């Protein structure tokens, strides 16, 4: 316990991490400012939604269709905000109507192929998993004002994952390197707990640091998007979010999914933290683990952005684990030892295995370490 406290102090007494947090937050406030126009649109959206939220019924569909016709005679210079709000809303209503049709088509097609496919074949299992998941969750059938949560859920994969990665690299790279570099390893390795408990304390300190980093940026997202768009819609089923979650496998309210997303981000962050720790236990100068981890983190991101083929080599990268791009937005199936598995369930097996391997490696490397 005493050891853990000191390890935490070593990490948290670095001014660099606070400077980085402030810089990153200021940076993202500036970029957010650029989408201010969108904000006006959102405001309009919000205004028009009052009183029209909820299940889509035939009356709402009729009104949307009528709006489609009226639009030609409308003078939208007069009341821009209302025009935006109304058109967004009515387009969404018609989209949902389409979506409902697609969904029932898909269900019947899926039922058909299930009856044709060889049971126990991999294809059958995949089809069955998709069918059962979508059947359970149902389809998007309502419209609510959920702009705040749309932004909050998306901002991680948009930019915040980068901040988390950077902070982990900055905070964790020195954990072992600095002991080697400052020649503290001499005294540490000769002490009773230097080759055992201390390593556990360092790993625990990294876990706590990762929790801190994820919390800080989660709070930042909540505060900024919360003040911009409000928290309305937290108890709406996830599939009824305005954007992106129409085909989610998660059958639950937004707030619950938000917490699950945070947990997965944290799981991924700690996995990456352990990776940085491994690098740190190998190098004397902490710039080396910082550089290597930076590469491991950024290369997949850059190749995703520019569609480089390198991407195809790795099914899961540390970047994916923190970014969680598209997480919960569709049915993502992974072939795990011949069995189809939902991506997030696969992660729940994969990440603990990754932890076990990483932690063993950290123990192995730092016990084997010798002074020079």
């Amino acid at each position, binding site marked *: 316990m005493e050891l853990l406290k*000191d390890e935490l102090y070593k990490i948290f007494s670095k001014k660099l991490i606070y400077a980085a947090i402030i810089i990153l937050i200021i940076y993202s406030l500036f970029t957010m400012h650029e989408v201010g126009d969108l904000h006006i649109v959102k405001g309009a959206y919000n205004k028009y939604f009052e009183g029209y939220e909820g299940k889509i019924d035939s009356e709402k569909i009729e009104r949307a269709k009528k709006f489609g016709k009226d639009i030609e005679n409308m003078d939208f210079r007069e009341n821009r905000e209302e025009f935006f709000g109304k058109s967004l809303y009515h387009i969404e209503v018609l989209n949902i109507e389409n979506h409902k049709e697609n969904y029932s088509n898909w269900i019947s097609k899926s039922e058909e192929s299930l009856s044709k496919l060889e049971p126990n074949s991999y294809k059958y299992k995949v089809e069955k998993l998709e069918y059962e998941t979508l059947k359970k969750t149902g389809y998007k059938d309502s419209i609510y004002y959920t702009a705040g949560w749309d932004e909050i859920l998306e901002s991680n994969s948009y930019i915040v994952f980068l901040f988390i990665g950077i902070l982990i690299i900055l905070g964790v790279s020195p954990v072992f390197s600095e002991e080697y570099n*400052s*020649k503290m390893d001499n005294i540490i390795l000769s*002490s009773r*707990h230097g*080759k055992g408990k201390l390593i556990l304390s360092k790993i625990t300190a990294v876990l706590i640091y990762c929790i801190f980093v994820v919390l800080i940026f989660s709070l930042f997202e909540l505060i900024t998007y919360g003040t911009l768009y409000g928290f309305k819609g937290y108890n709406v089923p996830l599939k009824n979010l305005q954007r992106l979650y129409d085909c989610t496998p998660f059958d639950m309210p937004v707030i619950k999914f938000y917490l699950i997303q945070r947990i997965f981000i944290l799981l991924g962050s700690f996995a990456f933290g352990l990776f940085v720790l491994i690098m740190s236990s190998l190098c004397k100068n902490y710039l080396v683990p910082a550089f290597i981890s930076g590469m491991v983190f950024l290369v997949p991101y850059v190749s995703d952005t520019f569609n480089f083929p390198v991407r195809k080599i790795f099914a899961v990268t540390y970047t994916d684990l923190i970014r969680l791009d598209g997480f919960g937005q569709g049915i993502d199936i992974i072939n795990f030892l011949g069995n189809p598995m939902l991506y997030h369930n696969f992660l729940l097996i994969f990440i603990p295995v990754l932890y076990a391997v990483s932690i063993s490696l950290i123990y192995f490397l730092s016990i084997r370490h010798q002074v020079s």
Partner: protein
Amino acid sequence: MKLEIRNVTKKYGKFCAVKNFSYEFTEGVYGLLGPNGAGKTTIIRILADVLNPTDGSVMLNGEDIKDMDYRYRNLIGYLPQDFGVYKNFTAHRFLMYIAALKGLSKTESQKRIEELLEITNLKEYSNVKTGTFSGGMKRRLGIAQALLNDPKILIMDEPTAGLDPKERVRFRNLLSEISKDKIVILSTHIVSDIEYISKEIVLIKKGEILKTGSSESLTNEIKGKVWKVLTDENGLKTIEERFTVGNIFRNGNKIETRIISENRPDDSAEAEIPTMEDVFLYYFDELSE
């Protein structure tokens, strides 16, 4: 208690820093004496379990220290020759940290740290960040941390480097005081550190034991090989070419030199009583500090 180095060899690539080294320590103070690069630090590190030998082993009472693992480390206190401190830790916090590493309880550590800060004369710097410490203060902090767990085996690499004469004396007295039931191993190339307090001195050269013995027996062995010669500026040149020269003392035109020589260098030479300083010169043919 018997600490035994058995046929230890340490190689760095092709270079052999320690060659087939064997020695036995029991309670008492030991001095490892040797010139720069002799391999003292290498041996000390192997004893402190921070460096693995290429070959051979270290045994405590017949048990390999690698098998004893933390049980061995629990018994030792180690002052490295070159060690770090956390710059933004205060002296007190630094010692609390090391105490935790050594598995001391909080109350135990508090008491012990008070004592040691007193002993090492650092009490008034207890709450000062170690980043501002001078070399000598850092060394004293290092001595304090080595003593935290009241070690049965105290291993110190050049403990007096950077200490002023007063602190050196304090340190030597401290050692004689605490060494009764301990194995104390010091490495140094400063003869006076160990001359009077060590039970046995181990002379090391190029990774091998050259000679061992008490300072008395070592000085006795070179009796009749230390001379005082009076000469002048011209004579000094020839003397320096022919002999190992120790102290040179100038007094006006006259120069008094201390010479190591198997035979009487010239008729005017007077035989001197050898000191450990002379032993060092005799075996290493180099000037000690």
